[in-house]
Structures are given as C-alpha cells and as structure tokens.
C-alpha cells in the first residue's frame, strides 16, 4: 500500500517534471535551438538522427524535407502548443466560470437557459465542433485559440454552477448579503475564490486535451499555419515521408505525447491532493 502510494507520487513528480521541461523548451526555444528553425538547407534534407547511419551531431534529431533542423522546430513548436493550451483554457474558463456563476447564483430562468445551451452543446463532441468551425473560419493561431475555448466552456460552466449552488447557501454569503453587498461583489469576492479549487484540476486536464486537439487540427491543416512550426503540422508533413524518414513524424509525435502525458499525470496528482 505504502509502495503503491509512493509510486503514485512518483507519477505526480514525473508529471511536474515533464510539464516543466516543456515550459522551459517553449520559453528558451531561442537559446536552446541549435539552428534557426526556418533555415532551409536542401543538400542536408531528410538526414537521420545522430545515432543512425549518416546522422550528424549538428542535427541531433535529423532534418526535414527542406533540411530544417527537427530539434529546433520541436523547441519552437512547444511555444505554439503551450500558447494554444493556455490561451484556450483561459477563454474556456472565463466563459464557463462567468456563465456558471450567473447560472448558479440567479437560478430560475437564467439557470434553465444557460444549462439548456450547455446541454445542446454537449450533444456534440468538442473536437467535431472545432473541426466544423475551423473548416469555415480562416485558420490562424488566434482563431484556433478562440474556437477551442468556445467549444469547451461547458465543463467549466457546469462545475462552477454546481459549486456556486452550494457556496451561495453558506453563512458568510448570507452575512455579506445582509450587509448590503451588491450581487456582483458577492459573486466575485465571496463565491468565486471558493469555487476555484476543483476548476484547477479541470484546467490542467483540459489543457492536455487542448494540446491534443491543436495537434489534431494542425495535422489536418486547420490549425497553426506554416511557416510557424507546430507539432501537429510537422507530424502531418512527416507522414508523407515516413517510408524513407521515420524520424520526421516520430519526434514531433513524441513531443505531443510527453506533454499530454505530463499534464495528465499532473492533473491526476492534483486531484488526489484535493481528495
């Protein structure tokens, strides 16, 4: 039992480590990258990683079909992934918390209306909504962040509403009300700080979903547009060459996997801490 808990803690620590590595990669991409991520070197196209025959230390993870350094592009791709992850979670949580607070606080028809909208949206998987919207909107980083935020607010909304319903019955809210505090003040200063903790776990797990969704959409050409490097679009380009250059699609995919795994392990650990 003790060993089991220690192993689970190891997973939590690994989650923190993986996430920290990806954040550092994104922040220090300019310093860590051995080459300029967009510099083409056609004579050196599709060179394998350093340990394979024909590989060189100058391009540790090999090069792509235009001779660009894959490691440098993975470092810079971390920026796009994290930007989308953080940005879309922020948008989803702002919409969700706002609507959830109003819904739980005011109840009655406001609650019914918002929850019916949530029900309708929940009838469709978010990835499907994102693909449908991005197929029509001109693709860019900002539209991607906005769309992913809009299609995933419901989870934040439902949890905020549920917590608001229980917190608004507490004595200190009643006390604030009897002192004549305005509704907005009660919501923002007394209820909001007390409903945030379950939302932190949802935010961590949502971020892993957002990063997967961004990679999937970029893979389809609906996400981050070239020449900005993104892991999903690198994977998509690499797919064309995987018969002759296995490394091209493998490493960007590994980067997505490690990032998502790290965030999920982190989310798991945070959930256990709360319980």
């Amino acid at each position, binding site marked *: 039992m003790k060993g089991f808990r220690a192993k689970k803690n190891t*997973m939590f620590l690994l989650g923190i480590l993986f996430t920290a590595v990806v954040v550092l990669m994104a922040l220090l991409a300019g310093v860590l990258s051995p080459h300029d991520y967009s510099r083409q070197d056609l004579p050196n196209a599709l060179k394998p990683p350093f340990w394979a025959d024909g590989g060189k230390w100058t391009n540790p993870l090999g090069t792509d079909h235009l001779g660009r350094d894959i490691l440098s592009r993975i470092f810079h791709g971390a920026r796009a992934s994290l930007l989308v992850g953080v940005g879309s979670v922020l948008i989803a949580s702002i919409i969700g918390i706002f609507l959830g607070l109003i819904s739980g606080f005011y109840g009655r028809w406001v609650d019914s209306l918002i929850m019916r909208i949530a029900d309708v949206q929940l009838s469709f998987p978010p990835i499907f909504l994102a693909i449908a919207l991005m197929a029509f909107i001109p693709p860019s980083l900002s539209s991607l962040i906005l769309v992913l935020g809009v299609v995933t607010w419901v989870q934040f909304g439902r949890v905020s509403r549920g917590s608001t319903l229980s917190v608004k019955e507490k004595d200190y809210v009643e006390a604030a009300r009897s002192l004549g505090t305005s509704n907005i003040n009660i919501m923002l200063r007394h209820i909001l700080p007390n409903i945030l903790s379950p939302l932190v776990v949802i935010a961590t797990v949502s971020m892993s979903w957002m990063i997967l969704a961004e990679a999937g959409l970029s893979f389809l050409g609906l996400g981050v547009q070239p020449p900005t490097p993104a892991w999903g679009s690198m994977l998509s380009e690499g797919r064309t060459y995987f018969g002759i250059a296995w490394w091209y699609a493998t490493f960007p995919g590994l980067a997505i996997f490690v990032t998502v795994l790290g965030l999920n392990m982190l989310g798991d650990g945070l959930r256990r801490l709360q319980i």
Partner: protein
Amino acid sequence: MRRLILRRLWQAVLVLFVVSILSFFLVYLSGDPIRALVPMDATPEDVENIKVQFGLDRPIPIQYITFIKQALKGDLGDSFRYRQESLTLVLQRLPTTLLLVSATILIAVCISIPLGVFTAVRKDTGYDYWGTVVSLVGISVPGFWAGILLILFFADYLRVLPPSGKDGLSHLILPATANSLHIIGLLTRLTRSTMVEELGKGYVVALRSKGLPRWMIQYKHALKNSLIPIVTVVGLQFGALLGGSVIIETVFAWPGVGWLLFSAITMRDLPLIRAAVLAIALLFVIINLVVDILYALIDPKIRYA
C-alpha cells in the same frame, strides 16, 4: 415512459433547430457566403444561379427558410470537386465510418473491461499501478501518431498488415487499434473505479460469505452493477469517435465520411463540408436519443426520475 420519450424527442427537435441555424451560418463564417458556395472557376452565370438557388440575394431569414426547404429535400448543393450531390456522397461513405467506429469500440471494450476488473480486484498493488500507467498512456497518446507508428512497424517493417485502404478485415485492424487507444485508457480507468466501489459494498461481502466463487462475484454481480456508467461512456465515445474519425481516417486513407470531410477541407469544398457536418450532427442527435431511451428501458431509476 411515454412522457420521457416525448420529452427526449422535444429536446432532439430543439437540438436539430440549433444545428440547422449553425450549419446555415457556417458559410457566413468564411466571409463571403456566395464565394463559399461557388467553385473558384465559376462563371458570372454560375454565381447568379447559385444566388437564386439558395436565395442569397434575399434577406437572411428568407435565406434560412430557403436553406431548410432545400435541406429537407436532401439538397445541400453540389460538391465542387465531385460534381455530385454533397449529401449523397456523404451518405455513401457513412457505413464505412460506422464500421471503423464499431470495430474501435469492440477492441476497446474487449481490452479495457477485463483490464479494469483485473486492476480493481488487485487494488493498490503493483498490477494496479501498471494498469494506471497503461490507462494514462492510452489517454495521452495522440491516435494519429500511434497510427503512423503502427504503420511504420506492422506495414513497413514487418509487412504483415496493409498500411491503408479498405479491402477486407486486415485493413481494419490498424486504424481501429490506433483509434481505440484513447478509449481503452478512459474505459480501463472507469471500470476500475466503479468496480472498486462495487466490490466494497455489503452485498459482495454477503455473496462471499455464502461461498460463491470469486470470479462469479466479480463478473456476474459486481461488473453487472458497474455497467451503467460504462455503457454511458461507451455511448458518448461512439459520438466522439464519429467526430474524431476525420483524423484517423486521413492517416489510414480509410474511405469514410471523415476522410471525405478532410479532402473537402483541403479543397475548400464548402457545400460538401456543410453536408458532412450536418449529416454527422444528425447522427449524434439520433445516437443520443436512442441511448437516452435505452437507459430508461434498462434502468427504472432513470425511467421514474
């Protein structure tokens, strides 16, 4: 029961109304709806014809009514690329997508339920820990990347399975496996947690004291009682897989609606995109309706709620 069915039907109608509004406005998101609905090489006459056909020269509410009338007749415009009715193209590909989704669910259920039960019974042991690792990896691995790795290993290196296309059962194995990894992760976790809860209940102790074999308690009694949340998630995942099929079908060149939608996206074939989106959305509504009614039939608690 009849009241519940009527209520669910009413909700489905409401959802359909929202879907119709959204799919109507989708072409407006692209900026110019006329440009969105005519091919790049269209002549001014073609543009005029489309304007009249979809009523694009009239006020928006009238345009919406025209769109609904056309949609009810099954006319969602011709695909630019295939020069055929978009809806017909989508409906032709639908069974292929449903085949892939069903195979995916089958693989996921066959692996994750026994694995979930196995780890629940061995709660807090090394087996349980490795079960957790497997489910975390399953949840985190991008299906399209797993697909590429599976092709590299089984089709390129070992040459035992075909990398793409749809010619028989062997073509189904790799895409369905890649597609199922995420659900295997989700379902293993869920089965484990619901089974742990069930195994701690009083009736399990009673059955054990009666001397019932362990496997019978686990599979015949506890698992049976854990099935409702599991069935719920399987139902939800069926819809999610339909939506996510675009990516996996593209990797394996699986000729379903997903791949059709992807090629329509790359060609900016907006009438075809709209038809595919509308057809998949309709399918979600039908699946949700059927699943809701099935629950009510299975579980009296839901029926009388």
